[in-house]
């Protein structure tokens, strides 16, 4: 559950807040669960929903749009992505702008359609597509940058 919260949050503190809210909901709703389906899946859904609620709350408080960062397209090899440290990959996802990160998680990892994502985040389907594409580009660009920095450190020294 914390792994899921970390993906949706911008940092560990926010992830722990999401996790705390999730557990409180779980304790309150446990009596209504009644062995319906997979408990893990139920917990997973509650975690994702709590993260989305936190995002919506923050979005309503903070009206500024997500900054579109430098989007350098490049080539990310399978090996570099697979060999990348989990913490680094998580950090890159966490550093994505809030909206990008939500769409990216929901689409790439949870596998929701853009229409569903649009309904969840209260945005257009087109916006979801565009944000997903930009998130992916931005993430790839950052992975390349990380990779280049690593190479420079190794070969430069």
């Amino acid at each position: 559950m914390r792994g899921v919260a970390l993906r949706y949050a911008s940092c560990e503190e926010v992830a722990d807040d999401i996790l705390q809210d999730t557990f409180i909901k779980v304790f309150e709703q446990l009596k209504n669960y009644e062995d319906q389906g997979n408990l893990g899946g139920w917990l997973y859904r509650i975690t994702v929903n709590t993260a989305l609620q936190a995002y919506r709350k923050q979005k309503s408080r903070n009206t500024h749009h997500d900054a579109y960062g430098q989007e350098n397209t490049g080539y990310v090899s399978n090996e570099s992505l697979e060999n990348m440290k989990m913490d680094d990959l998580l950090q890159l996802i966490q550093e994505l702008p809030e909206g990008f990160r939500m769409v990216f998680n929901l689409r790439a990892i949870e596998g929701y359609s853009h229409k569903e994502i649009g309904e969840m985040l209260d945005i257009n389907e087109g916006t979801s597509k565009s944000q997903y594409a930009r998130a992916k580009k931005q993430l790839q660009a950052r992975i390349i940058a990380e990779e280049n920095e690593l190479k420079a450190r190794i070969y430069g020294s």
Partner: protein
Amino acid sequence: MAHKDFENIVKSRFQDFESTPPESLWSNINNARTQRRKWFLLLIWLLPVLAVASGGAFLYSVNASNANSKIQSVDIQEFYAQLDKQKVKEESKLDLPVIHEHSKEPKQQISYNTPASSSIVAQTEIKADSEFFDPVPKETSTLEMMSVSELVGSNNENELESRPCPAYAPSSNFRQHSVGLRLGSFANVSPSNAKWEQPPTTLLAEATNNGNASYQRILEIAPYYQIRNLSNGIGIRANLLYAASNVNAVYENNEYFGTQTSIGLGLGGSYTLVNGRFQVAAYLDVQGENIRTRFNNSNSYGWFNNQGGSQVQTNTDPISPSRYEQWVLSAEVGLRCEYILPRPQWRINASVGYRNYFWQQNVETTGNTALIEIPQLVQMQVGVSYVIRK
């Protein structure tokens, strides 16, 4: 890299990704849950209190708005308490002279209708001659003998105020005797899983870890007899009592659910703070109760030890039945609101009080002597009473 590959790789990498939360998270969750429970508990008891207070304020304002009418503003109980009863008696024995003028002018009939909600009379028509108000009779009058009861028909304001109302006239000692029935429901002044070792003294008392227990008094029925002195507002009350309660003990993952029935006797005093149709009184009651407790776990039973926790014992050595009986003493202070209905013998009342139990129970078991303590209770009650004698 093809987009699909990128997505698949990211997805597979997060497939089994897990992270251990810091220890502080669990204490934060516990704190947050406790805080929510406290607010919930506070809200549960705040709402009825607010309801009673707002209801009382409403009734009070309705009562006050009737003050325009001199007749309505007179509360019959308090009014008669200030009368010189002896004088009234003498007047009622003597036939009083009443002036009947013989004016040649046409008589003007004036009708006074009191609203049905008047505390004195319902829909009384008063007729009088207009010249009755004239302090100096214009023409020769004849005196006729008329009893006080006949004076009800006159229109003199002073007479009207001092006129005894046959139905509600007080007795010579101005004491009001009434019988009533009150129904009460209670809650612990603590979280429901409060420990019984030290009865919490505040609404937000913390529970401790030495076994949890909770106590809920579901319903209390108490018929009572009350005597109230109308001149000084002091009343005394005696009541019988029947109550049903639940006891819930949790210890080492076992839960023991017990039921209690109580019968008792109470004695209390009150002082009237606000008079009128809507009345408020502060009260202090003391009650003795015989409480019978039975735990309905068939294989084991629980009790509460003198170390402050609840304990359980598996019933390997048959110890049955797990019933306890004891006498306890309690004291309660609170505020009671009463509203006099249009039929003034009938009253409805509601009160909020704080009750403390002084347990005197020792439960003898095979290996232990348990001392049961229960927390203080906040109680809400409603009732109805009927004035039988004044």
